[in-house]
């Protein structure tokens, strides 16, 4: 049976767990300030864009032939992947210009529906009919290969790779101060805490940065914010831009030996006991517009020790954000003892790109004395087709809690 299985094996999922971020793309926290950001993310994908930018199912149809008997039929799988994640981030302002962040995704579950279907093939003289789907899987079972499950649930309460980041706001010239321009560098790295998938399982994915394919193992960002319009101490409009490079380290994986799916996942004898994926890095450019349509009432509260003036510097009560991100994907390279297998695995992981659109609304209660911010965010990767990527659209609802101890 042709290598049906591993195609599912490499269905990496892009969750919407964002890299460590907070208000503006180049903002830092005030010294001594903690920010706890907790969000629930629901991400869904059921397609991929191939090398020509065409939307195709996550698994290509597999034509099954029987020697001398023609086409048995066509196995079609249209997998649908739903991922539920809680993203936790804790940020701390070491100085006004340097912020430390640590965070990571906690998967509640990953649910994969295989949506297998069957297109009958040629009339089989030995059966007196074309193979039905039942016939085919009975035939496969007689050779030791069970039918893959219709639905698989994995990654229940499972951590992904944790991320540690530093953001440094660069010294500002007088011109930058006069024109409300900030520049910041962010360096972030992922810790290898995420769970890997069981290599013998078909309907499963892992929880590392590679599988989530949403943040790199090491990232270097340069961001700029420009706030040209103000109402008092509140910027009504923030224009941001960012470029960054994400490095994905090579990873070594155990090769499936076919202990559970002997006809689909027996690769170790020729691929080797392990294989390596040198994940393609990303070159990313991002633009963001944030508008504050409603600043809201401002109260002197316990947070500002009664000072209305101090509370005026808090974020507006409602802000709306639109963001566009272009990700240039360098090719991911599979390395094993068998180059043909490696190339086949990388078929949908060549050079490509993503167009990511996001929108967010944030409700901040800081101005009225509650150190809370609520937000809802949507992200779409298939408004403009990408290439060699799997678009995982996501919706996020989150809350931020701020605290300062001094």
């Amino acid at each position, binding site marked *: 049976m042709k290598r049906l299985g591993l195609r599912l094996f490499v269905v990496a999922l892009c969750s919407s767990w964002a890299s460590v971020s907070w208000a503006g793309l180049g903002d830092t926290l005030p010294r001594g300030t903690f920010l706890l950001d907790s969000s629930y993310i629901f991400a869904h994908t059921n397609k991929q864009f191939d090398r020509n930018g065409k939307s195709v199912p996550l698994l290509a149809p597999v034509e099954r032939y029987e020697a001398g008997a023609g086409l048995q039929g066509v196995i079609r799988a249209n997998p649908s992947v739903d991922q539920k994640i809680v993203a936790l981030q804790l940020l701390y302002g070491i100085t006004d210009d340097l912020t430390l962040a640590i965070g990571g995704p906690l998967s509640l579950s990953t649910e994969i529906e295989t949506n297998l279907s069957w297109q009958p093939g040629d009339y089989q*003289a030995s059966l007196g009919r074309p193979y039905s789907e039942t016939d085919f899987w009975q035939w496969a079972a*007689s*050779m030791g290969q069970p039918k893959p499950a219709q639905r698989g649930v994995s990654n229940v309460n499972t951590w992904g790779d944790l991320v540690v980041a530093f953001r440094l706001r660069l010294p500002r010239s007088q011109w930058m101060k006069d024109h409300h321009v900030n520049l910041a560098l962010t360096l972030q790295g992922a810790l290898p805490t995420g769970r890997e998938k069981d290599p013998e399982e078909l309907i499963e994915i892992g929880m590392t940065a590679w599988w989530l394919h949403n943040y790199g193992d090491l990232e270097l960002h*340069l961001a700029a914010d420009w706030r040209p319009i103000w109402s008092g101490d509140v910027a009504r409009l923030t224009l941001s831009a960012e470029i960054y490079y994400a490095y994905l380290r090579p990873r070594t994986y155990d090769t499936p030996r076919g202990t559970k799916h002997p006809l689909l996942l027996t690769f170790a*004898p020729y691929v080797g006991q392990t294989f390596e994926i040198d994940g393609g890095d990303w070159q990313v450019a991002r633009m963001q517009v944030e508008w504050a349509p409603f600043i809201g009432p401002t109260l002197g509260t316990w947070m500002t020790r009664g000072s209305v003036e101090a509370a005026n510097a808090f974020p507006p009560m409602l802000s709306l954000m639109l963001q566009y991100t272009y990700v240039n994907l360098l090719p991911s390279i599979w390395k094993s003892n068998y180059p043909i297998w490696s190339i086949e695995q990388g078929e949908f992981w*060549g050079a490509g790109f993503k167009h990511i659109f996001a929108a967010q609304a944030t409700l901040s209660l800081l101005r009225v004395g509650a150190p809370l911010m609520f937000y809802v965010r949507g992200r779409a990767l298939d408004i403009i087709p990408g290439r060699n990527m799997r678009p995982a659209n996501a919706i996020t609802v989150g809350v931020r809690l701020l605290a300062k101890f001094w």
Partner: protein
Amino acid sequence: MNCHMQMRLWCLALCCVVVSACVDEPVAVYREVVHLKGAPYERGLDHGKRLRPRIRAFYTQLLDTALLPNLNREQPAIAGFLKRYAGPSYADGQFSYRVLLEMAQSVETQLPDRYIDEMRGIADGSGLTYEQVLILNTFPDTVLAVRSVAATLRLSRGPRIKSWQLLGWLNDQGAQRPAQTYSPSFTALAAEVPTDVRIRLVLTDPEGISADTVRLQLDTRVFPPGDPAVTTKALPNADGNMTDMEVILTPPEPMPAATVLSLIVQSADTTIADDPLPAHPRFGREETLTLSTLGYGLSAEEVANVGVDDGRTRPPPVAFALKGSATKDGAPLLAQHFALLDAGAAHEATTVFIHHPTPGEDTRKHAYVSWAGLTWGFSGMNTSGLAWACNFSDTLDTAILKDLIPQLSKLDEAQLTATGWPIGLAMREVSRSAKGAQQGVEILPNMQHVNGWNCLLADADGQLRLAEIDADAEAFPNPLSQGVTVVQWQGSAVASAASDTEDDLRAAVHYVSNTQDVDSALPILAESLLAPTGAIVRVDVQREVSTYFFKSLLAFHKLGKVLAQGRGSWDVAMAQQVLGRPAFVDPSDSMNAVVMEPSKGLLHNAMGKVPATDASWQTVDINAEAP
């Protein structure tokens, strides 16, 4: 430093400036040319080391995850007769591996040390065990031979056509012609038939025929079970048991005049086979019967049983050899499109091996078109100008059944062995030593062969030979050593497209000369095997039992037509183009295509894709020095 790394560093240096000009995406290479030198073990070792991952992939994908599990499905049928195979050592999925190994070891006893040493070298170089390499190098012959037995056992339990009759077809005296005993035929059963006849068949099966499974097809028109044009009636046999069924097809419209028509018949008995699953009725072989209608003008013997080209039939391997008046420049050509089993694997292992003799070695430099890990191929040539290509040819006259005969007295302990030569190694022997086609075919009868094969040989001097091989070396037909040019069967030229020249030969997967392939010992064997069960096994000649027979006829006659149309124009390009025509391409199991010019030492090959002719053609000059 590769492009990937360069880009990574460049981007880091420029802090994320987007650069996308240089992307190195690897390209898979599926076809290799490998030159081998030295002593046999050294050649094998070099072969094994250089192609190590391909050999391991080929073995795993083709055998471990495709062929061996599939062959395990035959265990119930075989263990039903040979009790040894119901034993514990063949349980837990070990049946197919054990059987193939035991047969491979019996093949091994026939082989000279040079091939055994070469296989040991491949094993040491690739990391496979010697047993695995031995199986890899013997499985096509042994599996095909086992398949013939298993298919015969299976089909023997299904219905067959007992007789046929054309109702309304009168003899010269105006009386209805009587029913005729049915036998599969190379030619039409009847000629100059009125267009309004009804076709009456009597089918038979010890378990009775299921009317719900009777399916007829007259040319492209299908009459499924229950079609009002078909009536069925159960009939008693001579013993009074209701084992027979009369089937009458009344074509809804008169058949066209002056036309050749084929009827395809299929039916099952009243039992259900459910081990292994999927459960299905026990079907007999699809039979093709041909007739011509009034005005066609030829006798039945002059009308070939071509069958129906309805797109449902996958062509078997075909090969043809041309020379003289057939080719544009008179030079000989030998071409083949080979198909058997790709399993998503074989095309990744395609290799041309060129063996260079060591100084003083009594061997000709020779090449063959093959796969990683194999010591032979199904086509090849040597530097003396001999080219050859072999197609399998289903037969029950195999080494397996020959080896079973002495074990008849202890059937419970009987073991499947295959004492003989695999065709690939037999042809390597020919390549090593033969100067020409005639010498080549004279070597083959001195060997016992594991399975049936049709081999075409052509040499630089323009000799064309066809060897129709079965396990009986002595059973080769006389024309073999004289050069088959035109083979007659019941008065019809069936072996050559050119009945008036000796300049072309062709072969599919049926015998056209060796039509009495099964010798008299085999039916005795069958009776002994089945006496305890009371069943009847049709151990018979190829045309009676082979599931490839009718599809082979179809491809064979299509090829003959093409060869005749192109007579005098044939060259390499034309041969390559024809091999890629859908009529000769099995879309899923095509394995390689070759066109050889023996007078120039050029071996043109297309492989590495499925079908093979989707790949570009590559030329190997076997006279060239090794790089």
